[in-house]
């Protein structure tokens, strides 16, 4: 196997060590493994164009996973992104309806709508103290229902050619690669932005909030504002993903369905700990690539689509268990397994 097996004795650069600690090594190993199996099935996969086709397909999920990462690392969930992607594509199709001229205004409107949804998610979670899993579940249903109501059940209209450029087009005639898709460049750029964001004071606050929001608050982090901004970030990323997905394949009734769980799967596979405070952006992005690579692999293997979710589930559990065994995932205290013999408080004494 080509993946580096870290040897315990040999000292290696600090950056590499940090790379390993974030869970990045496991997901990278899995990604390489999946790619190797794909290569045995389809040797032409690593010639430029098929690889770019794969990257183009995977780009929206990478963007979504980076958005989801922001929320998860702050200790929350965002279940509304799948519905938001669906809503945004349907809104775009209906408002544009094939007219080139309105493309940019509609994209602006979509970003504003994404901003609004993120803000509502964030404020309801932080100010009204509704757990985010409930807030965003509610938002998921609200968006789903509102879009169904607005369209009478299924989408109508069509996207303009220029709207579809980011998701479908690219720089043509690149040597070896063929077409270098815009979607890949956009996903790459957003990932880099997120990496720098996480190194900024805001990123540190976000991480601290997810690790322990009480301690973060005592040390001067404005927890509510930080979390709200994380939701806004996630919703904006979902909007970009919607532009890429709509561009990739046009508008269908099913667009966006189930994407929230695919995005969360990608983030978790990247070793980002649910509950917050641990994990890296790069690992989340690699997690997204791995999930897409698994989908591709299943298809290459002609695995019956009915069994695919089960195999996907097994691989995810195995990967996270593997990472936990390696000690890459240091669970925060409240998520760590309870001791076997927890002292039972005597009857009558109130629990803390």
């Amino acid at each position, binding site marked *: *196997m080509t993946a580096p097996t870290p040897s315990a004795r040999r000292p290696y650069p600090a950056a590499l060590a940090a790379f390993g600690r974030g869970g990045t090594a496991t997901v990278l190993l899995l990604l390489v*493994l999946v790619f190797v199996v794909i290569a045995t099935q*389809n040797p032409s996969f690593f010639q430029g164009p098929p690889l770019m086709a794969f990257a183009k397909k995977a780009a929206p999920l990478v963007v979504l996973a980076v958005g989801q990462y922001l929320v998860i690392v702050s200790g929350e969930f965002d279940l509304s992104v799948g519905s938001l992607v669906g809503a945004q594509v349907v809104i775009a199709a209906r408002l544009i309806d094939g007219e080139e001229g309105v493309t940019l205004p509609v994209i602006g409107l979509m970003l504003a709508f994404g901003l609004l949804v993120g803000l509502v998610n964030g404020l309801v979670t932080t100010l009204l103290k509704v757990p985010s899993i409930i807030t965003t579940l509610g938002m998921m249903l609200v968006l789903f229902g509102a879009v169904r109501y607005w369209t009478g059940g*299924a989408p109508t209209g069509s996207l303009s050619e220029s709207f579809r450029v980011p998701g479908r087009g690219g720089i043509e005639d690149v040597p070896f690669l063929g077409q270098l898709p815009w979607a890949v460049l956009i996903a790459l750029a957003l990932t880099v932005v997120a990496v720098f964001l996480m190194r900024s004071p805001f990123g540190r606050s976000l991480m601290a909030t997810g690790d322990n929001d009480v301690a973060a608050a005592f040390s001067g982090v404005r927890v509510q504002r930080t979390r709200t901004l994380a939701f806004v970030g996630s919703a904006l990323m979902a909007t970009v993903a919607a532009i890429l997905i709509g561009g990739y394949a046009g*508008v*269908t009734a099913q667009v966006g369905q189930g994407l929230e769980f695919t995005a969360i799967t990608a983030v978790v596979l990247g070793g980002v700990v649910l509950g917050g405070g641990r994990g890296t952006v790069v690992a989340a992005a690699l997690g997204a690539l791995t999930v897409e690579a698994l989908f591709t692999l299943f298809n290459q293997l002609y*695995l019956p689509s*009915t069994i695919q979710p089960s195999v996907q589930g097994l691989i995810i559990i195995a990967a996270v268990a593997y990472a936990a065994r390696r000690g890459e995932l240091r669970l925060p205290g409240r998520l760590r397994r309870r001791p076997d013999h927890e002292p039972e408080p005597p009857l009558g004494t109130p629990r803390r």
Partner: protein
Amino acid sequence: MRIPRMLLAGTAGLTLMLSACTTDAPDDAAGGEGGGTGLTPDAEWFDPAEYEAQLAQREIEPEGPADEPWSQAIEPEWTDTAEFVHDSPEDATVCFSNASVSNPWRVTGFITMEQQVEALQEEGRIGDFRVSDAADDDNQQISDIQAFVDSGDCDAIIISPSTTATLTPAVETACESGVPVIVFDRGVNSDCMVTFIHPIGGYAYGADAAEFLVENLEPGSTVLALRILPGVDVLEHRWAAAQEIFGGSDLEVLGYEFTEGDGAKIKDLVSQHLQRGEVNGIWMDAGDGAVAALEAFEDAGRPYPVISGEDELSFMRTWDEEGLTAIAPVYSNFQWRTPVLAASMILAGEEVPAEWVLPQEPIRQDELQDYLDRNADMPSLHYAKFGGEDLPGFPEAWTDR
């Protein structure tokens, strides 16, 4: 913990490798589920007698006015409805339990139905029209039907069942309440209703598409089948008919893929097949996302395949613009008019066919321009054979949806 780590890594690797080995025969394994060549229809979904009957029905001249296909019937057996005659039909309440409007085909049909209701109300042939929508939930639809029965207000109940077996008892309950029951689109395992309205059916649809590919492709050409979901009878019948026809042809079926009608998934799956080799033909069990499949060819710089889509407009427009070799099999959308017409006939005591088989003709190249012209103002995701051109509200009701 060294051993468990190695064990886990080993198991994961082994799982991947094993699954690679066991299904390592992409040339003859058609998708996997069926095993073998995959071109023998699954007995559960293939009724040879019904298949033959549907293929034969395609050739039979339907009774009724030729310019109103929604009033036509193939070999009708007329049933007497005098017992249901209503003294003042303009006050009669017609209730409709809809399975859902969760796809563009059903949205288009439901708009047509509402416009037909308006026309009949103006003529005083029916009164109030009540609708409940079960959003694809069997349990919801059972309670919707029960609520109609319990209210006692309905003078006729129209049901578009969500699934066949589960809804059968609910339909029987409605029949027992004594009001005339009309079932359309998907059927139920009962004949208690006054009339069951449907186009010829899934076998004819799948056969129209498969026969076109067989006729228009060289022997030895490769065909990829794109299916929406497994286990839905109307869709399984289409695939069973295609298997039957492909099985007796010289075409090579690469396999079938389930797409859930999701454009992104369709485009990705087709792109992957194109990376591995030639795809000369595409067979689809429903036209949703046909354009996404075609784009995969365009983006890969390959010649367009011979394709069977559906009478959905974005596909038909692409067909025209790109000069494709294509066919649009039709699952007659105009059937949504027929149940309310049947209700008005029953309330007037007129005879209706016990099984009302509507014509179902694919759109071929020679009719393409005609249907595109007729639907010039209609949006994408509209169905060309919606049959509502003569109804009040045309065209706004369909264009501003």
